[in-house]
């Protein structure tokens, strides 16, 4: 029933001279000694995290040019330190038909096979032996009695490593820096987003408060209609007062007299008697921007202004 959750993956030894394989299920990979550098050292430090900082300098004299990752674990009083090239291992895996997505865990031959006694054939030319506690490869011709390596029954340790697929493009620290920058920018944008939605919510609240304070109708359409109506009244009343004021102050000729001022909600009518020539009055009105309909009959000038 719970077989789905079992981790009994097949284990293979990854070696540059191995035959390509066809893998469709998940597997564990043990790296051949030719794929990493290993040292067993005693250091006057207590914790592994302190050793980790020293790893590049431990290997700096022996490693060729490249981008390396490091790993360390403690064995008795000694530290077993590793250096490996992610890109090289990944390329080899690709060459041998192993997809990284099919790889469950990657181990070093050193951490998994250092207990073995005797010699085990790895490929046509090399054999795996343990010498002074270090797993090494030796030419086949050196060893007379060779066994076959059986990995499926092997109980694997917890010393698995994760290959950095982009280590050769970007350093891990650069990844962290870029990640941090992205996270920082995301944080700023997230903060700005929160502030913006808060501001929008505050404005919406203030708008509701305005509705309550000024006792507005429930919808803006109703309020705008009321506003438009009152504005119309205001404009008309202001014009009415302005025009009446203008006519009352108007300079008329000696015998000219305003005899009537009337307003019927739309049209302002002014009648001036004794007008012989309407031109002056009409021009004065035009200068003021008042457009009037005029009629002069029997010295009576009728002006009709639509408000």
């Amino acid at each position, binding site marked *: 029933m719970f077989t789905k959750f079992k981790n009994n993956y097949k284990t293979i030894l990854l070696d540059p001279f191995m035959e390509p394989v066809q893998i469709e299920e998940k597997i564990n990979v043990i790296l051949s000694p030719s794929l990493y550098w290993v040292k067993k050292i005693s250091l006057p430090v207590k914790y592994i995290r302190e050793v980790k900082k020293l790893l590049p300098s431990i290997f700096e004299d022996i490693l060729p040019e490249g981008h390396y990752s490091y790993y360390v674990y403690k064995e008795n009083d000694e530290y077993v330190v590793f250096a490996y090239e992610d890109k090289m291992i990944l390329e080899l895996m690709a060459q041998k038909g192993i997809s*990284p*997505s099919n*790889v*469950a*865990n*990657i181990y070093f031959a050193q951490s998994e096979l250092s207990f073995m006694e005797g010699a085990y054939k790895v490929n046509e030319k090399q054999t795996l032996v343990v010498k002074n506690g270090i797993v090494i490869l030796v030419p086949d011709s050196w060893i007379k009695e060779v066994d076959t390596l059986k990995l499926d029954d092997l109980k694997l340790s917890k010393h698995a490593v*994760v*290959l*950095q*697929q*982009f280590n050769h493009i970007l350093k891990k620290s650069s*990844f962290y820096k*870029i*990640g941090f920058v*992205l*996270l920082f*920018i*995301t944080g700023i*944008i*997230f903060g*700005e*987003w929160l502030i*913006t*939605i808060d*501001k*929008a919510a505050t*404005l*919406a609240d*203030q*708008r509701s408060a*305005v*509705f309550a*304070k*000024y006792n*507005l109708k429930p919808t*803006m359409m109703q*309020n*705008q209609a*009321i*506003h438009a109506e*009152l*504005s119309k*009244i*205001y404009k008309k*009343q202001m014009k*009415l*007062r302005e025009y*009446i*004021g203008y006519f009352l102050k108007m300079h008329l000729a000696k015998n000219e*007299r*305003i*005899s*009537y*001022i*009337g*307003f*019927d*909600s739309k049209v302002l009518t002014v009648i001036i008697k004794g007008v012989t020539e309407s031109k002056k009055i009409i021009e004065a009105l035009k200068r003021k921007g008042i457009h009037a309909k005029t009629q002069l009959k029997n010295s009576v000038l009728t002006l009709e202004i639509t408000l």
Partner: protein
Amino acid sequence: MNRLNPLYIGIFLLLLLLFFALKLIDAKKELHQEKILYEKTLKVSLDTSALKKAFANKEKEKKEILHILSNPVLKSARIKKEMTNSGIRISSQNMDIKALNFLMGKILNTTFNITMLKIKRISENKSTLEVKIKW
């Protein structure tokens, strides 16, 4: 290789950034709309409130016009007033120039909604008057 690929984390962070950037753009647009709406509401409210005070304050306008009409200057004009629920109609058939100037000065300088006005000169110093104010 069970650990998460850093590229996936990078893509995830980028997508996260993009998501919040889009959210921020939307929120900014919303805020802009909200600002416009708020300013519009405030303007409409202030204007409407001021206009209502000026032209739709029935009790205040009624009180004011009655106060104006009670002035002794207008006594000789024998002003007739017809008060209805929606306004007042004032008329006089014989109004001297002093009373006319006083009444029109008061009416025109107060924010009454004048819906009808008729001032007719009947002699050098006399005129007739008819005014309708709506509230």
